[in-house]
């Protein structure tokens, strides 16, 4: 057990754990979008970014990726952190959230209550579906394809899917649905529907 300081409070953390895990265990909330305890962190949404001070330098870094070290000083609500969060929220939600909502959620320490607006289910590339498919189902059926404006999630092959539904459950904006023997990946950005036939049980 090592001791770190979060927002002025000393807390104990297991060696090898991340700042986010240590904070969550003692009830300190840090907003996240692409994090899920069942899969390894990816750090793409950057909403969980916090200010971390080690002996020599201070920087803003994703708390889901940063491993704890003895004497680490963490601040979760500095003006810089909030400004970053605001920027990310604006980017992710584009026109879906009002200026006030962006302001409110950037200062709040949790995204609880935040909803992806219906009919605007644009993929946010959190990669949860890909990670669950790889790490939990060990099927490797989904992958990112393309870059920038062209980036989207596609099925690799139809045979590998074990039909566990984990991608559908974890997808934060309901882009993936299970319909009978098909898993439907909806990517409104490209305006096309990828259908994947589930493995015959």
């Amino acid at each position, binding site marked *: *057990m090592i*001791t770190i300081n979060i927002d002025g*409070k*000393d*807390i*104990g*953390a297991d060696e090898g754990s991340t700042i986010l895990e*240590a904070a969550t*265990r*003692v*009830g300190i909330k840090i907003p996240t979008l692409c994090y*899920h*305890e*069942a899969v390894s962190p990816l750090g793409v949404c950057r909403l969980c970014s916090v200010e971390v001070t080690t002996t020599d330098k201070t920087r803003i870094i994703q708390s889901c990726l940063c491993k704890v070290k003895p004497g680490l000083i963490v601040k979760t609500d500095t003006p810089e952190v909030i400004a970053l969060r605001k920027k990310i929220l604006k980017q992710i939600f584009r026109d879906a959230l009002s200026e006030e909502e962006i302001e409110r959620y950037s200062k709040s320490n949790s995204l609880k209550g935040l909803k992806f607006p219906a009919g605007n289910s644009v993929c946010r590339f959190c990669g949860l579906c890909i990670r*669950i498919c790889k790490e*939990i*189902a*060990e099927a490797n059926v989904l992958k990112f394809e393309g870059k920038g404006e062209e980036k989207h999630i596609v099925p690799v092959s139809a045979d590998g899917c*074990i*039909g*566990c*539904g*984990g991608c*559908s*459950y*974890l997808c934060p904006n309901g882009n993936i649905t*299970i319909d009978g023997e098909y898993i439907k990946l909806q990517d409104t950005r490209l305006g096309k529907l990828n259908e994947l036939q589930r493995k015959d049980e």
Partner: protein
Amino acid sequence: MNRIGVFICHCGLNIARVVDVKKASEESKKIPDVVYATDYMYMCADPGQAMVEETIKKEHLDGIVIANCSPTLHEVTFRNAAERAGLNPYRCEIANIREQCSWPHVHEGKESATKKAMGIIRMAVNKLKNDDLLIPATIPVTKRALVIGGGIAGIQTALDIADGGYEVILVEKTPSIGGKMIQFSETFPTLDCPQCIETPKMVSCNQHPNIKIYAYSEVEEINGYIGNFTIKIKKKASYVDKDRCNGCGLCMEKCLTTTPSEFDLGLSRRKAIYTPFPQAVPNIPVIDREHCAHFTTGKCRVCQSICPRDAIDFSQTDQIVEEKVGAIVVATGYDLMPKEQIREYVNDPDVVNGLEFERLLCPSGPTSGLAVKPSDWTVPKSVVFVSCAGSRDPEHGVAYCSKVCCMYQAKQAMLYKEAVPDGQAYIFYIDIRSDGKGYEEFVQRAKEENNVIYLRGKVSKITRGNGKLMVWGVDTLTGEQIELSTDMVVLATAIVPPEGIMELAKKLRLSTDEYGWLKEAHLKLKPLETVTAGIYIAGVAQFPKDITDTVSQASGAASKVLSLFSRDEIYGNPVIAHVDEEICAGCGACESVCDYGAVEVDLLRNVAVVNEAICEGCGGCAAACPSGAMQHKNFTVKQFFDMVEIAAEKY
């Protein structure tokens, strides 16, 4: 009946000092139908009994009255003597001239006391004249036992009965047997860990050919009577086919949903498909429907897809299984009083109860045995232990002592001091109760070797201030007010009856005391039996006790069951209710007063029917019957009037 013998006992001087026994004996000979009367120093002694037997044979007696002490003491003795002499044992009446005559009338002179004794004897003779020759019914015994509760009490009982060669059904509410004991870190005073000493017993239970474990199940309904119970067990849907599952644990590893663990009292998180702890018996996970994403969102079925044995079955439903048993042992254990109920102590994550601290100290617990504060997961520099948090405190509804807190607090303080040598442990106590083998030495060791500071006094208030917990109390030895600033507080909250015990007691027709503990048949002489024949109790279900006492009582209950099973059939009590069907109008007054469920109205014939095996012979129905159709055998209305007639004559 016209050959009655009267035997008057001196009971040393207990009776003879007050009652003129010689005169009573002479007077008794004058009672109509009495052909023989005598007195003797100690009728219950072997020579006295031998005399009764010989006289029955020599005088060809067809009924006897023993004038001595209360029938609760020696009625059985003389009924047995009568039987040995060839007389129907129910033709033996006891005239209680000790408790009801010589003892209360010791200052009123021999003459009046003797007169009253004669009245009592004549009443008994008059009753005896109408005593029926009763023959007890034989009841076959189903030689299988049901044990309710899979804690250490239930496990020990089940193992002992199973080792005796009989089948046992062990019903446990949670997904694994093990009970509270398996949650402990170490056990006092030997400091062996329950994971080492209890798991072998759990495994034996699982592997024993005579034991059938129903985990994640509850007793739904119980019918029948000693030797012949029919039970309905509800097997809660676990959504895991236990015949297919091999306990590989892949589902638990892969499950995407977590929720606070009940086993760790919320100090860690478990998956929605889980076994409570790694050594669980049976090692078959269950799905918690309330949290499982399949049931909450309908989307996820990761466990089903990855299970290599295809054991996940979301279509499972609760099942009711019927089993027949001859005896039941209730070992339902306990709960702890909720901390929130003690309102003068602040509701704070660092104020934990004894069981939570056990989990924190446990090497296989959420912190791997490192004592930490739940609020920030750092090691506390000081810990204050508060004894009697709710116990011995009628204000909080628990007037009794919870029995184990003094000892487990000494143990916890000791383990804390060993883990954190520079930390400080304080124990507030009222009295230290260390009444067991090696217990007092253990407490002394905590004081002397581990430097635990004992403070005699009650804690009146716990508050949070300046980032620390403040404990306010008084040291009654010095009379000083104490104000301690500490990192953590451990409350020895009172041990209370478990949730749902009232409903179970109702199903079993058992009574509970004012707190809800199951009531034994006699606190000293029948501590394992209950008022319902064939149902026994073991462990804390009866009252708080430590593991040693629990295990002893469990083996005791098992031996009661084995002694019942050593007979193929048992004799019922023939002194029970009886219906004269010619008179009975089927009004059901008897059915409504019977506490044992022994009387039922036969709706077809419209008469009351007594189940002779269940009837305990309390007489309630006979008193309630408006027509006199319901009579209590050998306590009929006629017999009562015959006795009252004598009483009304003023002897």
